[in-house]
């Protein structure tokens, strides 16, 4: 399993590049990962999503789907597509240092 130094810390990544240990994540790492996929800078709206994903993962043990972010955190679907364009669910999980969501909606 590859490891890399991101924002000064040693982290484990899977073959795709997603972090495999959410415990290794820091906000600085999140900002670096975002920059790598062209999201720069992270606005307060981005952070709202990332913080929700992190706390929801702690509580539920799995990454929230887009639908869950929208209904539970109260963020409009449309905005999520704007904040994390292209592949919103995967991109937000990536930046938050979490696995890709398993749910379908």
């Amino acid at each position, binding site marked *: 399993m590859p490891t*890399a130094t991101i924002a000064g810390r040693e982290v484990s*990544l899977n073959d795709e*590049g997603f972090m495999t240990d959410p415990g290794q994540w820091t906000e600085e790492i999140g900002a670096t990962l975002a920059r790598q996929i062209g999201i720069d800078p992270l606005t307060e709206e981005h952070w709202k999503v990332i913080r929700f994903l992190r706390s929801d993962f702690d509580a539920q043990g799995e990454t929230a789907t887009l639908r869950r972010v*929208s209904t539970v955190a109260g963020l409009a679907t449309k905005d999520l597509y704007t904040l994390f364009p*292209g*592949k919103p669910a995967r991109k937000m999980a990536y930046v938050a240092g979490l696995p890709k969501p398993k749910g*379908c909606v």
Partner: protein
Amino acid sequence: MTTSEGFIAPKFDQDAGRKLAIICSKGTLDMAYPGLIMGNGALQEGIELHLFYTFWGLDIIRRKTVDKLSLTPVGNTAMRIGSTSLAMPQTLGALPGMSSMASWMMRGKIKGLGVPPVHEFLTQVAEAGGHLWACKMSVDMMKLTKEDFIDEVEDIINVAEFLDLSRDGQIIFI
């Protein structure tokens, strides 16, 4: 891909330019969902989406019927009792109220999975950039007009227009 900072990052642009067109020809509650789930999933992967509603599928996008879709156990040999392998007896399925009960149960199960009701799902798909179309021939046959459809429906189009829209895309028929 290895990034400028020397670590691998996922390829998030793999599906750029991909296009999916789903033809939805059935109007029952259970058959409304496959197109919506797959279409919504495609949008989340950055794939352009066109949902083309035709024939009975028009019920899914009609104002008068979108919230009243149902399913019947009659003729459906895959309808089991609970999680057993026992088939629902066909005569039981034909009793008054059984379709309403089956529809009510399915709505509950769908809700339990965190999946939205049909109308809300259509709105979500449209907000995410998905395109909803009604089939001209079916609309004419059923003597409907644009006003009969929910606001998210962009237009009534014919086969040639559908083929233009779905050019170089993948087409799924439901």
